[in-house]
C-alpha cells in the first residue's frame, strides 16, 4: 500500500502507523454515560469494504490522517487531514 499524504505526497505505507476506525475522532460527551463510552471504545462496525480510519504519518509530517480504504482489496480511495474530516466535528451518537 502507498498512501498519498495531503502534505507530503505519495509515500510508502511503512512511514505510517494505523490507529483504527476514524470514529475515534468523534467521541461521546462526558455525560454520555457508560453504554455510549463502551460502544465508542470497544465496538466496531468492522466493515468488509470501504472504511474510514485514522493513520499517523510518524515518519513524515506527523499529521493525523483519515484514510478511506477498502478492507477487501487494500485500495486507498481518499486521504484527508484528520482536522478537515467530518468525524472531528461531530459527536458520536449515543
Amino acid at each position: 500500500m502507498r498512501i498519498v499524504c495531503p502534505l507530503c505526497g505519495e509515500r510508502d505505507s511503512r512511514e505510517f502507523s494505523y490507529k483504527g476506525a476514524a470514529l475515534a475522532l468523534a467521541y461521546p460527551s462526558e455525560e454520555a454515560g457508560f453504554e455510549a463510552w463502551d460502544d465508542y471504545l470497544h465496538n466496531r462496525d468492522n466493515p468488509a469494504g470501504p472504511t474510514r480510519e485514522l493513520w499517523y504519518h510518524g515518519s513524515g509530517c506527523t499529521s493525523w490522517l483519515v484514510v478511506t480504504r477498502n478492507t477487501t482489496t487494500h485500495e486507498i480511495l481518499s486521504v484527508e487531514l484528520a482536522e478537515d474530516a467530518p468525524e472531528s466535528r461531530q459527536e458520536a451518537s449515543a
Partner: protein
Amino acid sequence: MRFSALRVLKEGLTGNKGWTPHWRDPAPKPEYDAIIIGGGGHGLSTAYYLAKNHGMTNIAVLEKGYLGGGNVGRNTTIVRANYMMEGNSQFYSHSLKLWEGLEQDLNYNAMMSQRGIINLVHSDGQRDAFIRRGNMMHAQGDTDAEFLFPEQLKKKLPYLNHDNIRFPIYGGLYHKRGGTARHDAVAWGYARGADQRGVDLIQNCEVTGIDIVDGVVKGVQTTRGAIKAKKVGMVVAGRSGQLAALAGMRLPIESHVLQAFVTEGLKPVMDNVVTFGMGHMYISQSDKGGLVFGGDLDFYASYAQRGNLPTKEHVMEAAMCLMPQIGKARVLRSWGGIMDMSPDGSFIMDKTHIDGLFLNTGWCYGGFKAVPASGYCMAHLMATGQSHEITARHRLNRFETGRGLMDEEATGSQHNLH
C-alpha cells in the same frame, strides 16, 4: 467406515475401491434443534461435541463456502498450552488434553506431533519472565515446562545463530507437549465425527438473515432457504462483525490480516517449533519438509486474506537473523488469514442479549490450538445455556467495566494493541 491399519492394507491390495465419502452432503431440513453458523474448525468441533457430549443430533452446521476453507486451512498448525492467566491457562490446558486424545476419539489421523515448542529469550528480563511462565504452567498442572540454558540449546538447536550481536540466545522455555497437527485433517476429522452422529453439514449455504422475534431467535435465512432453530451459534471468526450485524449487534472485534509463509520442501532440519518473540517470528518444519513460518499482524483492518510487502520483509529479516541458512531456501507460498481481534487479546464465548443466540469470536491469532476446547465449551454453552467453568471469564461484557479483562500480554484493552 472405521479407519485402521488393516483397512489401509486391505484397500491397498484391492485397488482402493472401498473408500467412501467421509460425510454426507444433505439438503437443509426446514427445522433443527440447533444451528451452528460456520463450518470451520470451531464450528465443526462445536457440532461434534453437541452430538457426543450432549446428545443433540438434530443439528446443522451452515457453511457459506466449503468445510474447513477458512482459517483452519490457513494457519501455521501450532498446538500449545503455555498460557499464564487464570481462565486462559485452564482453557488451553484442557484443549491440549483433548488434542492428545483426538485421533483415537475421532478415529482420524490428524498427524498430531508433540515435537515441543521452544520460546527463545534474549535478555535477563525476558529469561525471568519465561521462567515465571514455566512456573505458572507447572502450577496449573502442565508439568512439561522446562527452561533450557544456552549450552543445552546449542546442542538441541545447532542451526540457530546463537551469538547474534543484537539477539544473543540466553535460553528458552521448552514446552514439550506442544507441537503441530495437520490443520485440514482436524477439520475433516471433526466433520466426519459429527456427520456420523447425525449432524447435517450443509455447504454453500450462506446465512443472509437472523430471524428474531421479541428478543428470541427463531432461525436463519440462508441462500438455501429459511431454516428454523431455537438455538443459533455464531462461530465465524474474522467474519463475526458482519454476521452479528444481521442480528443488530456491533461487536468489540476488528478483523486484521496475519501472514504466513512456507518454503520448498527440505530434508529434516528442525525437530521443534521455535519462537523468536523479540523478532516477532516463529518457525517449524512441516512433515512434507517445508519450513513454515510467520510473524506479526500487518496491523491494519483487512479482509483480503493476503498481506503487504513490509510485513513480509520484516518476517524474512527476522528469519535471516535467527537462522541465516534459511536464506538458501526459496519461499514457495505465502498466505493471510483474517483474525478476529478483540480489545484485550482473548476470545469471547458467551450468550448474547438475544435469547438462543450464542457468540464465539475474538480468537485473535490463536484459534487453531483452541479448536477442540472451543467446540467442547461452546457445545456446553449452547446445550445448557451456561458457560463451561473454564470459559466463565470469557464474557462479552467484560470490556464495559474493565473488570475481568483477559489481557494475557498486559498491553491494555483497546483495539490495535494485540
